[in-house]
Each structure stands twice: as C-alpha cells, then as structure tokens.
C-alpha cells in the first residue's frame, strides 16, 4: 500500500497529469477573466485549492476542478519526492538536476508569495504626507479615541472579524461592539426616498436615516463591495439585553464617508469603516507628480512621482524619484508608480511587501542554466554522432 503510494507520488505520470491539469486550469482561468476581471478570476482559479461550482452564495457548492494551490502543491511534492527517491549523481544529469531544482525554488517561492505577500496602495495628492498604505479590497472598522489632541488611539477591527463574530471586546475599548448586521456588499438609500415602511436598523448618526439592502458580491473589473455593518455599542459590564445601557446602534459603511463621533467615559470616539491600513514607521510626501506625453499625442511617455522619504528611526530624510520601471525599495517594501487620478495631480503608488521576491530571480538563473546544459549536451552528442554518420 505504502509502496503503491510512493510509486504514485513519484511517478512521471503524476507530473504529466499535473502539467496537463495546470494547462486546463490556466486556460479556463484566463477565459474567465473576461467576465470576472483579473483579480476575481485569480482568487477562484489560481489562489484556491479547488474551483467551485457554483462559486458562492448558493445553498451548495461542489469542487469541479483542482485549483492552483492544489496543483502547484502536488507538483511540488511530486518533484521533490521523485528526486529524493531516484537521485544519483552523474555529470550527464547535471542539466536535469539544475532545471528541477530551479523549478522547486520557483514553485515554492510562488506558493510562499501567494500566502505572504501583501499588496496595498498609497494615494498621495500633491504636497500630501502619509505614513500608511491602504488595501482597497479589504475594509476595517476603525474605532478611534480622539480625546488627546496630539495622539489618536486607533483600534482597527478587520472585515473578517466583523463578518464572523457577534460581539467584539478589546482591552483598549471600554465597551463591547455587538454586530447586529453585516453586509458583504450593500446598497444604501435614504429612508424617506420611496416611502417604504422599512425601519433603519441604526438609531444613531446619519445611519438612522438610511436603509440597507443586501447586494450580490461585486465581480466587475472596476467594481468593489460596499461593506456595511450595523453595530451596537454597549459599555463593558452591562448585559446584552439591558437596552437602557446601550449607547445606541450605528451604521458603519464604506459608502458613508465621514467618521461618526460619540462620547463615552469622558473620551471622544470616532467610528469609521475604511480600507484596511498598514502603518509604516516612516512617512512619504508627494512633492510633484508628472505625466509626460509624446508630442502631439495622448500616448503616455512617462509617469513620475517626486517624493520625500522621512524616517526618524533610521535618520533618513531624502528625495526619491519613482517612475516607470524604477521603483523605490525601502525597508522590505517596494513602491511602484501604479497610476494617477484624472487631474494628473494625485499619484497612486503600489506598495508591495513580498519576502520571497528573490526566489524567481534565483530560480530563473538555475533553470536556464539547467536547460542550457541539458540541451547543449544533446546538441553536442547529436552533432558528434551525425559527423560519424556522414563520414
């Protein structure tokens, strides 16, 4: 039994099956991008263990095809296992060993990147300074203690926590947050818009005038979910049912812009649903954004952001020019010129933390060397034989 299993996971047939499955998956995932957009198709096809049908939100779903992580994982195990079982050193096998070692590095690096890389954006208007980047795909509920004029105390509750737990308690908060309702995607409308008799869930802030409708998850290329939650604030120590001690229910939503304020225990608090933030120990200031075009055309020639980087910890204070194909790498993060807003005044930098970004560089060199050795070995052998045949 065990021998059979070992034979299976080290077999060349399994390799071929994985490669063929990968081709089918990539083809399907590429076609799916037409309707789902690159990001969503990537989640469903490549960054998953299985491809599900129907996708989500239905009563049932069944796996119809192995996803990218599963195929990649099996391929990785297959590669390592096959080499562990059959490895024996010979010069004429150098090319093959190099190629496969490189592939192992590449696959492992890819998997690692998928799991640990963090992508976010930094949106900077001219002259603006920021010490955080944002992930527009994930939201967080920020509860901010603004009592101190100098220093805000932020407690951020990720979207995933809001989705899963009913009651949220944290040592930094003198109250509980009870999630009354959570909408992954929603539409907001004013309560008096069409005279319906639906009551708002919230009774505090602007949310008290708003009715929330649940909406299907956004799949379009430029669409994103409007995450909304109705939360009740109950001071620590009071029972859930003690309605008289509740501070009220607020509606927090991506669609409601400004933070909502309330007071409790001599402190002033703000509530805001916003894109998840990653704070940095340094700050970035946009001095100038330039967008060059070729003369007499609208074809962009270059985008560039002139920024100032200030890091008190490292005593860094310098100007940096970030432009096409020339990112800034700083403290494990890389800043790329990703886009701009219509008026050419706001620059959007992509911020990536990818601890395994060197893996593909190494893998590429190793595999290319392996292929060269391998095919070169054949070519030499072939021409030598051919010469003997012709002679």
């Amino acid at each position, binding site marked *: 039994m065990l021998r059979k299993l070992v034979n299976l996971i080290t077999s*060349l*047939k399994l*390799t*071929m099956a994985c*490669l063929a499955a990968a*081709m089918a998956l990539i*083809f399907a*995932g*590429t*076609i799916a*991008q*037409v309707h789902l*957009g*690159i990001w969503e198709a*990537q989640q469903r096809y490549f960054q998953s263990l299985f491809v599900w049908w129907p996708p989500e939100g239905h009563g049932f779903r069944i796996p119809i095809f192995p996803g990218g992580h599963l195929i990649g994982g099996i391929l990785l195990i297959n590669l390592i296992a*096959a080499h562990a079982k*059959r490895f024996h050193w010979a010069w*004429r*096998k150098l090319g*093959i060993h190099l190629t496969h070692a490189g592939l192992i590095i*590449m696959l492992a690096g*890819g998997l690692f*990147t998928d799991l640990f*890389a963090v*992508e976010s954006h930094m949106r900077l208007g001219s002259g603006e300074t920021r010490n955080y980047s944002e992930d527009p795909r994930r939201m967080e509920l920020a509860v901010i203690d603004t009592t101190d004029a100098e220093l805000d105390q932020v407690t951020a509750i990720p979207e995933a926590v809001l989705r899963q737990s009913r009651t949220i308690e944290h040592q930094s908060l003198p109250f509980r947050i009870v999630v009354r309702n959570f909408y992954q995607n929603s539409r907001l409308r004013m309560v008096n818009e069409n005279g319906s008799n639906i009551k708002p869930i919230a009774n505090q802030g602007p949310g008290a005038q708003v009715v929330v409708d649940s909406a299907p998850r956004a799949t379009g*290329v430029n669409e994103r979910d409007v995450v909304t939650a109705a939360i009740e604030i109950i001071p620590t120590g009071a029972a859930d049912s003690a309605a008289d001690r509740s501070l009220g229910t607020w509606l927090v939503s991506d669609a409601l812009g400004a933070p909502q304020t309330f007071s409790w225990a001599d402190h002033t608090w703000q509530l805001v649903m916003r894109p998840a933030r990653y704070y940095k120990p340094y700050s970035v200031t946009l001095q100038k954004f330039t967008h*060059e*075009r*070729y*003369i*007499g*055309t609208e*074809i*962009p*020639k*270059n*985008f560039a952001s002139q920024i100032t980087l200030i890091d008190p910890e490292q005593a860094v204070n310098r100007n940096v020019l970030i432009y*096409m*194909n020339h*990112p800034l790498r700083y403290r494990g993060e*890389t800043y*790329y010129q990703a886009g701009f807003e219509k008026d050419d005044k706001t620059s959007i930098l*992509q*911020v990536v933390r*990818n601890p395994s*970004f060197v893996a*593909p*560089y190494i893998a*590429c060199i190793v*595999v*290319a060397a392996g*292929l*060269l050795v*391998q*095919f070169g070995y*054949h*070519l030499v052998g*072939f021409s030598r*034989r*051919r010469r003997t045949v012709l002679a």
Partner: protein
Amino acid sequence: MKRFFPLLALVLALAWLATSWLPPKVAQDEPDLVTFGKIPVLVGGRVKPLDTVARNSLLIIHGKETLRLANADQITAIHWLADLLFKAETADEYPVFVIQNAEVLGLFGWEQSDRKYFSFAELSPFLKQIDEQGEQSDKLESVQRSAYQSAVLNLRNALILCQRLKNSLRPQDAHDFSKELETYAAALPPAAHAAGQREKGENFDKAQLDSAAAFIERYENIANMAYILAVPSPQGSQWHSIGETLVEAVRTVDIHPVVKAYAQIGDAYHVGDQRAFNQQAAQLRDWFSKEQPNATKRTSFEFLFNHVDPFTHSMVLYVLAFLLACGSWLGWTRPLNRAAFYLLLLALAVHTFGLVSRMYLQERPPVTNLYSSAIFIGWGAVIVALILERIFRDGIGAACAGAIGFITLIIAHHLAGSGDTLEMLQAVLDTNIWLATHVVAITTGYSAMFLAGMLAMIYIIRGVFTRSLKKETADSLSRMTYGVVCFATLFSFVGTVLGGIWADQSWGRFWGWDPKENGAVLIVLWCAIILHARWGGFIKQRGLMIMAIFGNVVTSFSWFGVNMLGVGLHSYGFMQKAFPWLVGFIVSQLALMVLAAMPLERWRSFRMAPGAVRRKDQSSNLKFVPPGLA
C-alpha cells in the same frame, strides 16, 4: 542545366528586386513628389517623412496604400495627400472611403452594390448623421459594438482624419495662401501697436485689432484641427502645427520660414505650376537638412524603406522557395533544393534589411508591437529552419522556412491596417533592456513552436497523402522536431521568467495572471509535457508530431487569442477581424491531429510495408532518448 538552374533562379530573383528597387524617377512636367515626400513632419509623436504620413493615412482611410481613381488610374499615397492638402476640391472627388456595411449604406438611403469606395463629395450631405451615429458607438467598449456600430465609427474616424489632414498645412478654403500670409504679416505690427495702446488705456485703432483678430481666429481653427505638426522648434525637441505657429506670430511679429515655404509649395501645387512646386519643395528640403540634419537623414531613409517595401518582396521570394522545396520531393531533387536555398538566403537578406531598418528608424529592439512580433517570429523561424536545412539537406527546412516566412509576413501585412507600425511605446514599455530580452526571447520561443508545428505538419501530410515519407526522412523529421521543441522550451521559459522579472521591477509582482503571461506559461507547460512524454516513453515518433501540432494551437492562442479577450496589460485592442482566422487555424490543426491519429496502415507512405513501419515506430530514435529520470 542541373548545375545552372539554382544560379539562374537567383539571378532572376536579383534582377526582379533590382527593377523594383530603382529609385523613383520624376518626369519633367510632373510635380516632384519624391522630394516633397521626404520632408520631415511630426505625427503620432514621431518625426517621419510626409510619404509615411500619406501611406499610413491612406491605409487607415482606404485600407490600401495606393488609390485607384474612378477612371481606373492608380495614384500613389503621396499624390493623394498632396491633392488633399493643397487641392481639396479635387481630392474630395476621389473614391477613398470604404463602406461595405449594408446598414451604414442604408443610413444614406443607398443600396448595397459592387461599389465599396465613396468620395467625400458623395458623403458630405450626411456628415452630421455620421458624426452623431459614430459618437454614440464611440461611447461603447469595442467588444460591445455591433458590426454596424464599428463600421459607422470607422467611417466617422476616417472622415475626421481626412478633415484634419486638409487643414494641416493651410486652411482648406485658402487659394492664394502666400498672399493671405503677407496681408496677415502686414496687419500684425499695427495691431500689436494698437494692443499696446489699449493696455495703457490710450486711444487705439479698433479696426487694426479686428483685422488681425479675424486672421487669428482662422488660424486657431486650423491649429485645433491640425493632424500634421510641420514646424520644428530651433532645438528640434518640440514641433508645432502651421496654425499654432501663425497664432504665435502675434508675439514674434514674423512668419516662420517653414510656414511661408509650405504656403508657396501649396499655391504652386494648387495652380499646377510644376516648376515652382519643385523649386520650393527642394528649398524646403534644403532648409530642413541644414536645420534638422538628423531628422532629415532619418526621414530620407524611411522614404527609401517605404519605397523598397522589403517585406512584400521577401514574401514573394518565400513563396517561390517554398514551392521549389516542395517540388524537390517529387523529383529533380538537387537543383530545386539548391534553388530554394538560394532564394531563401536572398529572402532572408531582404527580410533582415527590413527588420534592421525598422530598428534603426525606431531606435528600439525589434519587437515593439504585434506587427513587429509577426515580422520577428517569421525571421527567427526562417533562420532556425535554414540551419536545419544546412544540417539535413533534404528540403524540409527550406520548405518550412518558405512557408513560415510567407505566412508570418502575410499576417504582419494584415496587422498593419491600423496605421503607423512604428508607433510610439506606452510608458511602461519604454525600456529597451526588457524589450530586447523578454520580448525577443518570448517571440523566439513562438518562432520555434511554429517551426516544430510546421515540421510535424510536413511529416503528417507527406506521410498520409504521399509515399515520399521514407524511414530516413521520418527519422530526421522527428529529430528536427524534437530539437526545435527543446529550443522552444528554453526560449519560452527564459522569456516568460524575464517577463515576470520585468513585472516585478515595474509593478511589484512577479506574476499577475495577466492573459498574456498565462499564454506564455501555457507554451512552457506544453513544451514540458511534450519533453516528459517523450522521455518517459509515453509517445513515439507520431505522438511527438501530434503534440507538436497542438503546440501550434497553444502558441497561436498565446500570440493572438489572449489579445482578443481585451483584458490585462498586454491587450492591444480587440481584433474582431482576426478572430475567424484564428478559429479556422485552430480547427485546421485539430483536423490534422485527427488525421495523424489514423491507423498507420492508412498512411500512404506506410501502407506498402506496414510491418516495417511498426518496427520502426517502436524503436524510434532510442538513441536520442535523453538520460531522463527513469
């Protein structure tokens, strides 16, 4: 004869090239459009000769680079452009606009007939309608447009381009433009004086101001419409349109010499004064070669490049070589084979000249857009195929070289329809290092995949339909295919990973699952499957051929198919027209694969001695099985 035939073929081909490459002669009583066509202007962000502007514009508007008039005379693109610029009322009668869509014709109350070209004069009553209809479909994404909407939008764009050209060098209603400019120049100093007085609050002559203002409004109009930027700034980094320069003259109180020269050229052309036209055009050319020596050198070369038209010529040579190589399998083998090889070398030389010229003109590595990828894929495949031909000397490499060279150049020819093929590069692509490495490696991989597929096609077609596939030929075909697949694996892999590294440098992620990236990795995976299947003994000779043909399907999807999806960073627009061709190609390849899967007894080459075939098939190329894992 046997000995001389190949040389004879080569000499004939050279003679044919020489006759069509003779420098264009200008008859005494005709306007010198050669000199005129070499004058540099800036369009689409690039300095190019007027000849190129003429060819590209006519290609966009008319679909061809020459124009056949109603009286069956054929005129060149530069002739058409000169008429359009300086004799608009004549050019308005030329049947340049292509309308084939019945619904668009119905818009004007016309029935569909044999005629598909219409003149501006015929369309002018419907301009407003065309503009409105076109504007509506312009709001849609290209994928959403119906055939009618695309057609009406194309017509609108063609009309706009035509109107912009007409107003590029002079207002389209100008008759004696030199005289008009003199009046304008004379009106400027008093107007400037009056304006100065007005600023100081003194009394001023309003009439002086108004007369200049009327001119300025007129020139602002053509400045807004201008398609051609004709006037270089002294440093040559900035170019302005005639209209802009005239408006600017308010400040300098002087008319730029280039503007004056174009006015005189235009006036001479307008009244048909050949001598004055030739003289003025020569003067303007001299002015440019003094003031803008580099630009002039380049545009003169580009004019030559346009005239020589290397890709069309090498296309013809490739076809001839292909036919000769195929003929060599039927008999008279050596002379035909030699002749094919010589013609291929000549075709490759012309092809290389074209490729290198484009690199010189653009100052870029060879592949910058889909058009140039077709040129380069053909070039790479031809070189590898010729190397195979040198090694095996059996006409197979030659036939592949001829066929692939011809097909890729035909594809390139059809990709050129959108105008300038030397267009400027989007900001992200503006890096010669990555264009030279990633893009070249990827396209070399494509070349090799297509070559392997072509070899496999020859194996199958010769094997199934003829008796010419001897064991020896079959074996060498198999070796060639295997070798070329190895080559393709190396280049596709390296190219794909280099693309990833470029992406990591530019966007911060090595791999983004962009359709073009996926297409590239599909090729790498397919190569890996072929090689492992062979090393593992899952396939033999015929299996290798079938898989190599499927490589054509994968590669064509990667090259063209993914662009048609219209998503991602590499999408160059939806190519509706190419879609049926792609589907047709894929279907043909699948059909060949089915054909190849027929029992060997039914192959004509193997029918005679099935036993022998089986033996061969089982023992195929054992000595070439590489030391795999097994």
